[in-house]
């Protein structure tokens, strides 16, 4: 591997100023499971790696219980920390579904959720559940801090809105409505150590009679160059009673909205068919979860 200097700032300001002074010659790194592979392959050739690992408090997962409770995930939280969190498991099972199948235990112990988002690969399993949950991201850089919808953070494969020196610091998930169920499925040919052919996240909130759907969210991964929401299918579901037939129709609408393509992992027509099937299947799982909250 080509030589580089490894810098370990102790504060965000220090990290940002290092990045400002070295510019193109430097590169941020968190867990490094992706950056290291790119360094070995020569796809990245920085003179300086600016590590974010020692920045204080950015690995915390914080949740205030109750209707006003917002979930705040530090960008440096590892996938393993999210997988092991009881809060995530019980209240945000859609996130648990996703993070417990990213890479292996070895990868999840090191790789961070922020890194997963910043990489912006169309198959990023971490992104879809968060998009489905209406998450926002907080960014901090030389020009100050800003917040935006995670959905708009992605510009294309490998491309985000991050500007030079900017760091993704936190993910903010707004409070859930009562009687909400959420679920994610990573769909692939193997059970482990694979990138998904498709990722489907669904969230459904029900009314007081547990009948009609008052809020629906559908997030799709590998269905377009960036994570997308199936807005038409969501609108179709809201106000309706989500029976299996209705969910199947929502799946059909979502499939029409998706912009799937042929790739080595699967054909477009197959992906489109599976959007239909999996939106329905995840919808049913949401209902199960909404009706029997742990």
């Amino acid at each position, binding site marked *: *591997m080509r030589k580089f200097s*490894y810098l370990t700032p102790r504060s965000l300001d220090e990290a940002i100023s290092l990045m400002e002074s070295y510019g193109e010659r430097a590169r941020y790194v968190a867990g490094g*499971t992706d950056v290291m592979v790119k360094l070995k392959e020569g796809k990245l050739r920085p003179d300086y790696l600016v590590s974010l*690992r020692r920045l204080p408090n950015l690995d915390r997962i914080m949740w205030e219980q109750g209707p006003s409770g917002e979930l705040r995930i530090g960008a440096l939280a590892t996938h393993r920390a999210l997988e092991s969190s009881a809060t995530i498991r019980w209240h945000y099972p859609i996130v648990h579904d996703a993070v417990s199948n990213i890479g292996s235990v070895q990868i999840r*112990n090191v790789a961070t959720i922020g890194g997963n988002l910043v990489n912006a690969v169309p198959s990023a399993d971490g992104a879809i559940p968060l998009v489905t949950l209406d998450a926002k991201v907080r960014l901090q850089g030389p020009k100050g801090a800003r917040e935006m919808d995670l959905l708009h953070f992605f510009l294309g494969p490998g491309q985000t809105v991050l500007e030079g020196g900017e760091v993704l610091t936190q993910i903010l998930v707004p409070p859930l409505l009562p009687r909400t169920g959420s679920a994610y499925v990573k769909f692939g040919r193997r059970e482990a150590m694979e990138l998904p052919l498709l990722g489907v996240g669904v969230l459904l909130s029900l009314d007081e009679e547990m009948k009609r759907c008052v809020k629906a969210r559908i997030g799709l991964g590998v269905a377009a160059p960036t994570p997308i929401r199936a807005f038409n299918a969501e609108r179709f579901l809201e106000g309706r009673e989500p029976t299996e037939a209705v969910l199947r129709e929502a799946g059909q609408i979502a499939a029409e909205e998706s912009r799937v393509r042929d790739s080595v992992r699967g054909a477009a027509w197959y992906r489109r068919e599976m959007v239909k099937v999996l939106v329905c299947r995840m919808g049913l799982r949401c209902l199960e979860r909404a009706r029997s909250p742990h």
Partner: protein
Amino acid sequence: MARRISFLLNGEVQELEIEDHWTLLYLLREELGLTGTKEGCGSGECGACTVLVDNKAVNSCLYLAAEADGKEVLTIEGLASPDGTLHPLQRAFVENGAIQCGFCTPGMILSAKALLDENPSPTEEEIRHALAGNLCRCTGYLQIFRAVKAASGQFEKRSAEVISRSAE
């Protein structure tokens, strides 16, 4: 750039000078001569290079040596007792025929140790989930799962003994 790091390796303090771009795998194998940790794919897919850092399984091929500073690292060389008595997991692998060519074995055993330390009596599914990042190209997975299951019994038995002894 070079830097000095100090960390606990298999129970012993190591203080040495390393280069920033060295991986932990390189440090262990090439500088310290601990060749029990294997290099398979070099990209975090196969798990042959698995070691424990602060009791967590990591791919040492993707882990910078600089990040080991101040931490505790366990490799396969540190698992048996100093007198040569095998760890229950090592014994279970031998007794259950869970070793074929042996290349994946150190990583398998360390991943299994991290699992059993956290969850002393895992289900078959939990074992499979925990070992998903360790590939065995001889494909002797069933024997490996059986060995971990057998060792988990011994983990339980040992903790039960401790409990009954402390009750006396």
